[in-house]
């Protein structure tokens, strides 16, 4: 236990001083690692801990991104305040999808597919309704002041992503130590047994998806502020849903560090294929190659290594 704490401390310290030595390119990569780990963790809390596999988590991401951007651009809200509203909106959408799906008794694959359909509905709506400006997308006017959630030095986005990632790790850590988390795991492992032991399965599942929705929406606003642009396929595209699921599954679904490890692995694979592409000109198109590797990893991990990469270097879980 003490070793784990020491390791976490050392890792955090390294992450904090990293941008002081690294080039902008690597600071940006670090930012993405933490950001993807954060939204991956939002998936992991519902999909990994509670076993409610979602194929459409991007619905919360996009809800967050659009809520804060619309409030800011159309109604002139301060983006920090709009960020809170975005989380609230994500929570509401999470609550709504959970109540509808779980009231209907959807489980397993059916839940996964209905989340995919919800994301699709939101994408089509964002493409069609006037207040999102449809397929044109929304631009946030550049005004680089911290009060505006925009920073002249990208290092601040790095630290913000790091902070989000740390918060998400703390939330996951709490879940391994409190009653709510124990109930989620019980539901994942066996819903009937959980019900027999007095757990209100429906209520707990609604709670976790609400929390997960709020977290993921926070990621959406972060993304919008970083790139100052969103459109329906960025905000509600299936790619991001898959990315969140992948980093959690590959790193280790239902583990604290799974999404972070998965996010690091994704980035390493990306960089390696990028390097390969510079050597082998035939591989000019890098992005698909790393996704091929990732798809293969997903298949192998689901089939052979249910605890993901975490399972490789974790001792037999002993009681702390």
């Amino acid at each position, binding site marked *: 236990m003490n070793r784990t704490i020491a390791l976490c401390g050392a890792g955090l310290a390294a992450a904090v001083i990293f941008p002081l030595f690294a080039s902008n390119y690597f600071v940006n990569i670090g930012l993405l690692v933490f950001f993807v780990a954060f939204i991956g963790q939002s998936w992991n809390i519902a999909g990994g801990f509670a076993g409610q596999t979602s194929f459409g988590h991007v619905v919360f991401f996009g809800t967050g991104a659009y809520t804060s951007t619309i409030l800011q651009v159309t109604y002139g809200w301060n983006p920090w305040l709009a960020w809170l509203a975005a989380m609230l909106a994500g929570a509401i959408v999470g609550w709504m999808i959970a109540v509808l799906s779980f009231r209907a008794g959807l489980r397993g694959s059916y839940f996964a597919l209905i989340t995919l359909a919800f994301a699709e509905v939101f994408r089509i709506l964002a493409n069609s309704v006037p207040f999102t400006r449809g397929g044109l997308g929304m631009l946030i006017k550049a005004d680089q002041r911290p009060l505006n959630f925009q920073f002249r030095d990208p290092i601040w986005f790095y630290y913000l992503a790091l902070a989000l990632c740390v918060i998400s790790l703390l939330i996951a850590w709490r879940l391994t130590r409190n009653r709510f988390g124990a109930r989620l795991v019980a539901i994942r492992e*066996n819903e009937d047994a959980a019900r027999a032991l007095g757990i209100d399965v429906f209520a707990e599942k609604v709670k976790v998806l609400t929390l997960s929705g709020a977290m993921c929406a926070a990621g959406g606003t972060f993304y919008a502020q970083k790139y100052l642009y969103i459109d329906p396929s960025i905000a509600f595209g299936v790619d991001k849903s898959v990315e969140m699921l992948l980093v959690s599954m590959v790193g280790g679904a239902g583990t604290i560090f799974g999404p972070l490890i998965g996010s690091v692995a994704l980035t390493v694979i990306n960089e390696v294929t990028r390097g390969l592409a510079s050597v082998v000109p035939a591989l000019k198109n890098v992005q698909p190659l790393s996704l091929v590797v990732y798809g293969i990893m997903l298949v192998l991990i689901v089939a052979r290594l249910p605890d993901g990469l975490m399972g490789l270097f974790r001792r037999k879980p002993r009681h702390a």
Partner: protein
Amino acid sequence: MLEVRELSKSFGGLKAVDHASLDVRQGEIVGLIGPNGAGKTTLFAAIAGFHAPDAGRVAFEGKDITGWPPHRICSAGMVRTFQITQPFAKISVRENIMVGAYFRTADRKRAEREAEAVAGMVGMAGQLDQMGADLTVAGRKRLELARALATSPRLLLLDEVMAGLNPTEITEIVAVIRAIRDSGVTILLIEHVMQAVTSLAERVYVLNQGRMIADGTPAAIAENPEVVEAYLGHGAAKVLRA
């Protein structure tokens, strides 16, 4: 303590339970027996809130709990186990039992102490760090019992805790069940094997094809010709008497 009146439940036209009634009094061990497919597990599920009954009434400690969801019934003080054991496979025995213990407390330390105490009671103190998936059949049956017990019920519904166990293991678990009763928990248990019940229960109900066909002391039940026929087939009682 538990009153079941005229309870019926059918699945797609098939009457699994047909106007069944039973009573359990505080401090008893009551057996519910019957041949395979008699509807015992369905009756249990209907009592514990897993299936809403089509007709009839279930009252627990004077409260009408018919149609309540399982978690409310659990907080009223009644909890069931499963015939096909359902351990939480990927977590330890301690964490398995803690899920039950968390029902009465949100405090981790207390839940942990509670879980350890319950594990001691069912003879699992040495297996606390084993994974749920790694347990033997006997271990799973005990875990099933321990988790339910950790919710601090006043009435425990046990569904075939002895099935699949060897004679030594049965003797052990019978002792555990007695100890649980002596600690103040009332017990209603389903068994398919009659002998197992006769050594444990003070009173026995017999269910056959969804209907309650007899009740009484184990000795009286064993003599009841209708019961013998239900188990061994039509005409068996006559043959046995001859």
